[in-house]
């Protein structure tokens, strides 16, 4: 069972530089947005000034709102749709730019020209006082620096074992993210990123006053269609799903009872035959489950859950 994804504390600048993705495979797999600075984000917490939201899309049954969160380092789009009714209601509620905290899922959209746009789909948000917003920016900068230090250390010393870093109290998710950042962004300018954090520190100190909201996005942009999703497999009928679940039940039983943890294919087919499932049908179901990555056959004739 996967644990809840943590909300990575990131600046808008870090989100703007994040252009790599890791797509999960299998059932209910999470996808991650990878930053150059040791963040492997499914969920983030951002803080800044949120501009008034505007509706996007023309389908009235599928309302979708977008706003812009500006922090001292940059800006990022914050969206909420009918699947986030609470966040959407709040996003719509503010007539003027106000400091806010937003927790949400990262989303990377690649346009036709290949340019990536990162947005945060809000799960929860709250308008806050300026002090509270500055406190959160402080924590974001602190964790950004911690992660940046980690990437730089691993860049200098690639052979340092994960166990050594973990023993120092560095979260394993951070170590994994740092190694992935170095692999995906070998030539990124980390010095520039460190410099980009300076205005945020001045903001924490209260030297720069409240953040002015960034320029409004061009009014001409209207998205009437969601970005194209990868072609989905044809939906299963209820009968097919029942077949698959019966197949998996038998597989689990056999795997549990066997010494090596594998279910023997012949035995499985025989059992299903007892239940009136023909061998051809069983092969077909197996083929579907293998294609979906639910079941694998690492040894010929031996099956297990992937």
């Amino acid at each position, binding site marked *: 069972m996967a644990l*809840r994804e*943590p*909300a990575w504390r990131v600046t808008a600048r870090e989100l703007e530089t994040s252009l790599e993705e890791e797509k999960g495979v299998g059932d209910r797999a999470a996808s991650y947005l990878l930053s150059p600075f040791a963040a492997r984000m499914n969920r983030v917490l951002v803080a800044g000034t949120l501009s008034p939201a505007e509706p996007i899309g023309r389908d009235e049954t599928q309302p979708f709102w977008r706003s812009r969160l500006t922090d001292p380092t940059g800006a990022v789009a914050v969206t909420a749709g009918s699947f986030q009714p609470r966040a959407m209601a709040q996003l719509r509620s503010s007539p003027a730019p106000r400091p806010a905290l937003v*927790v949400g899922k990262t989303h990377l959209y690649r346009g036709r020209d290949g340019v990536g746009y990162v947005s945060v789909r809000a799960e929860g948000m709250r308008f806050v006082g300026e002090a509270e917003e*500055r*406190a959160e920016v402080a924590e974001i900068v602190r964790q950004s*620096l911690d992660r940046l230090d980690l990437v730089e250390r691993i860049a200098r010393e690639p052979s340092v074992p994960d166990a050594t870093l973990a023993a120092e109290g560095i979260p394993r998710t951070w170590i994994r993210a740092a190694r992935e950042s170095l692999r995906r962004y070998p030539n990124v300018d980390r010095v520039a990123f460190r410099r980009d*954090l300076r205005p945020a*520190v001045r903001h924490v100190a209260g030297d720069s006053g409240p953040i002015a909201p960034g320029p409004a996005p061009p009014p001409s942009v209207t998205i009437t269609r969601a970005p194209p999703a990868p072609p989905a497999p044809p939906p299963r009928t209820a009968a097919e799903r029942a077949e698959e679940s019966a197949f998996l039940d038998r597989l689990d039983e056999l795997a549990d009872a066997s010494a090596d943890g594998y279910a023997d294919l012949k035995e499985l087919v025989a059992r299903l035959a007892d239940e009136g499932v023909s061998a051809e049908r069983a092969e077909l179901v197996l083929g579907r489950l293998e294609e979906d990555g639910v079941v694998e056959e690492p040894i010929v004739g031996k099956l297990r859950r992937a």
Partner: protein
Amino acid sequence: MSAERPPATIPEVRLRDLRPSVSPVELVGRVVSFDRREVVRKSDQSRRPLLSGLLSDGTATVRFTWWDPPREGIERGTILRAVGVEVREFRDRPEVTFTWRTRVSAAGPADLPRVDSEEIPFRSVSELGPPDEGFRVEVRVVRIAPRTVTVGEERRVVHDGLVADRSGAIALSSWSDFGLLPGEAVRISGGYVRQFRGRSQLVLDERATVVRVEGRDLPAPEALLRAPPRTIAAVEDAGGGETVAVEGVVVGLLPPSGLVYRCPTCARTVKNGICRIHGQVEGRADLRARIVLDDGTGALTVNAGRAETERLWGVTLDDARRRLREQPDPSLIEEALLESLLGRRLRVRGVGTKDDFGVTVVPESIEPVEVDLDAAAAELAARLSGGT
């Protein structure tokens, strides 16, 4: 029970040294617990009585199965000598079976193997896990308090607390009064570890020995109760703990939160007027918040009860019920609670347990955290100028 003496050829073993083998062994042990049942043989539907439970000799505890046991004369605490016992292994632990070939007779405390306390190995608290026994520990009593419980028909006093050494802390449950006081350092032998509600617990009874020691190397109780917060990732790795301290931001609430109704008998939350155990009941209103706390390294659930929820929210149970009367939609209550909590920075101390859904903390304290902005800015500025 037969009173025959064993033939000299069968070796007597301590339970600690028990290994699965083809040749039968002799052993002496005390019945710690047992159950009687009947097994129906499939071939001829015949019924065979069976007695199974735990047997201990002070060096270890093993599961035993006794086919065709006597109808009477077996009680908790009965000491038995069994000759011709079969030893098998189940899930890497030895188990013994008394069959028709086994001769079982009554024995006395003097027959139990003599365990020299100097022989028992010292263990650190972090190494302890169920179902360990036959170890010694040197620990500091962090806290301890008596509690009355009902065991079957009986009212008994159990001394609940927490003990710790440098490696970690473990819950203590003592069924015998050793006069323990908070702050004392003690050497304990004869205890055992069990899993209780997802936590490891060191259990002491009249068989345990407690000796006061100086305990110079043991941490002070305050050091444990006021330890600085750790990352949630570290708490997840450790699988929770007896003295969890974390700091994070509220990123959500899990259901059921807000105004809930509890079964008057068992205090479980009632859904649609139905208790999972007691069926249709008249639920008692309560306020709770299942807070998702996140520090950027991980997330955990904090189960805040009524008092903490009222204090954090600033709304009492009565207020919430009044609101419900005005606007009969319980989800509005939960929404208002989330609205007031989301994004708030909290420091939480308590007992953490881990299951498939992650770590859940039952809080001893929840404190809002005030951030010193000037100090934070100075620290971050120093780090930035030092790093480039």
